[in-house]
C-alpha cells in the first residue's frame, strides 16, 4: 500500500516533463518522409541552401552598406564636433593628411572667419589610437579624439551648454573593463589634460611630464584611475601623440590650402601666431 502512495508524486513530474521536453516531441513528420540519401542529393541540397543564404546576404549587404557608412561617418563627425569650437568651415572636408607615408594622420581644421575677410585655422581635431603605443591598453584598441587650440598649442577646454566644464579629449572607442578602465571616459579623469601643451604646461603649473602621478609623483600630472593604471597610461600616451602630431606639423596645418573656402595666403599675414618654437623638446 505504502509503495503505491509513494509512487504517485513521482509519477507526476514525469508526466509534466513528458509533454514539453526535447527528444520526445516528434510529430512523426520527419519520420514520415524518408529521404534517398544519395550523394548527389546531399550535395545539391546543401548547395541550394548556401546559394539562397548567399543571395539573401548579398541583398542585405546592398541595403545596409550605405547606412553603415553613414553611421560610421556620423560617429566620427560627432567626436570631431565635440572637440572643436564653432567653425566657419566644415572641418571634415578641410582636413589635411600629415606624417610619414603609411602612418598618415588626418588633421581636421576648424577655421573662423575674421572681420578682415581672412579665415585662419583656430583649432584642430586630431584622432589617435593606441596602435604603436609603448603603454598598451588593457584590452583591444583605444581611440581618442583630441582638440587643440592652434594659437597656444594647448588642449582645448570649454563649457558645455549646460555649464559643465569639458575638455576636448574624447574617448571614441575602447574595450576596457566596464567600471574600471571605462572611467577614462569620465571628466574626472580627463580633466587632467585641461590646458596642457606638449610640455605638460597648463595655466597653473610649470612644466610637467606626460606621465601618471604613479609613474612620477613630482612631475606626472595625470591622476591615474584607481584600478586602471594601465588604461590611464595608455590614454595619456595617446593624447600626447596627438599633441606631437600637431607640434611637428604646425606650419603645414596653418598654411596648407586644401579644400579651404578662403585662400590661406591671404590669411597668413594677419594670423596672430608667434613663430612657434619649432624645436620641441620631448619631455
Amino acid at each position, binding site marked *: 500500500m505504502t509503495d503505491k502512495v509513494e509512487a504517485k508524486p513521482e509519477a*507526476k513530474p514525469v508526466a509534466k516533463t513528458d509533454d514539453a521536453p526535447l527528444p520526445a*516531441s516528434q510529430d512523426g513528420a520527419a519520420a514520415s518522409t524518408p529521404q534517398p540519401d544519395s550523394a548527389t542529393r546531399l550535395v545539391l541540397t546543401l548547395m541550394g541552401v548556401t546559394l539562397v543564404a548567399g543571395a*539573401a*546576404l548579398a541583398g*542585405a549587404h546592398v541595403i*545596409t552598406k550605405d547606412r*553603415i557608412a553613414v553611421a560610421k561617418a556620423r560617429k566620427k563627425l560627432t567626436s570631431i564636433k565635440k572637440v572643436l569650437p564653432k567653425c566657419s568651415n566644415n572641418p571634415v572636408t578641410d582636413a589635411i593628411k600629415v606624417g610619414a607615408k603609411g602612418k598618415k594622420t588626418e588633421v581636421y581644421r576648424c577655421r573662423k572667419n575674421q572681420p578682415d575677410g581672412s579665415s585662419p585655422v583656430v583649432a584642430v581635431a586630431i584622432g589617435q589610437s593606441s596602435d604603436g603605443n609603448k603603454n598598451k591598453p588593457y584590452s583591444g584598441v583605444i581611440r581618442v579624439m583630441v582638440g587643440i587650440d592652434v594659437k597656444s598649442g594647448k588642449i582645448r577646454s570649454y563649457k558645455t551648454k549646460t555649464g559643465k566644464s569639458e575638455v576636448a579629449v574624447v574617448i571614441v572607442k575602447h574595450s576596457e573593463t566596464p*567600471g574600471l578602465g571605462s572611467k577614462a571616459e569620465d571628466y574626472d579623469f580627463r580633466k587632467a589634460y585641461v590646458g596642457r601643451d606638449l610640455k605638460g604646461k597648463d595655466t597653473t603649473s610649470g612644466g610637467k611630464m606626460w606621465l601618471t602621478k604613479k609613474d612620477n609623483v613630482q612631475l606626472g600630472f595625470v591622476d591615474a584611475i584607481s584600478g586602471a593604471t594601465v588604461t590611464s597610461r595608455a590614454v595619456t600616451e595617446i593624447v600626447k601623440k596627438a599633441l606631437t602630431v600637431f607640434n611637428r606639423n604646425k606650419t603645414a596645418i596653418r598654411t596648407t590650402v586644401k579644400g579651404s573656402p578662403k585662400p590661406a595666403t591671404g590669411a597668413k599675414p594677419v594670423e596672430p601666431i608667434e613663430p612657434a618654437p619649432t624645436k620641441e623638446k620631448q619631455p
Partner: protein
Amino acid sequence: MSDTSKIVSRGFWSENPVLVLLLGLCPTLAVTTSAYNGLGMGVATLTVLLGSNICISLIRNIIPKKVRIPCFIVVIATFVTLVDMTLEAFVNNLHASLGLFIPLIVVNCIILGRAEAWASRNTLGKSILDAVGMGLGFTITLFLLGSVREILGNGTLTLFQYQETLVQFRFIAKSTDPILVMILPPGAFIALGFFIAGMNAIQSRMKKKAG
C-alpha cells in the same frame, strides 16, 4: 489553446534556456553588464531564433538527415549576419557594445538546439511559438540578470540608449562606490548562481505544494 500557451510558456519557466537548460551561457555571462546590453542581446537572439526556426521548419522535409546540421548552421549564420548588419546600420552604439558577441550567436546552443530538437520535427506554427517562448525567456532572463548586475555594480539601470537619448535611472549615489565586481566577469557567475538557486528554490517549493 492550452497547447499553444504550453509551448510558449515553457521557455519562460520550466525549460528556461538560461536557468534550466543552461544553454547559451557565453553571451549570458559576457554581455549582461547592463540591462540595455542584456535586452539587446536577448532581442538579437530572439530574432535569429525566430528566423531560423521558421526557415528550418519550412525546409525540414527536403533536407536529408545526413546534411541537416550543416544546413541548419548555414541558415542560422545567415540570420546572424543579417542581424549583425542591421544593428550596425541602425543601432550603431548597441552594436559597438555587444561587439564580438553578435557573430557568436551562431554558436549559441539554444538556436541549434531548438532547430534540431524542435523546428526540424514540428510544424511551422509550433516552431514559431517555440521560438517566441524560448527567445522571450532568454531575453527576460538576460534583462533581469543585466539589471541586477548594473544596479549593484554601477548603481544605474539603463533602459535605452541611442545617440543622445539616454533613459537611465540611478539607484546608488555617484559619490558612493558600487559593488564593482558585479559588472566584472566574476559578478556574472555570482549573479547567475543566485538566479539558478532562486529558481530551484521556487520550483521545489511549488512542487511541494502541488504534491
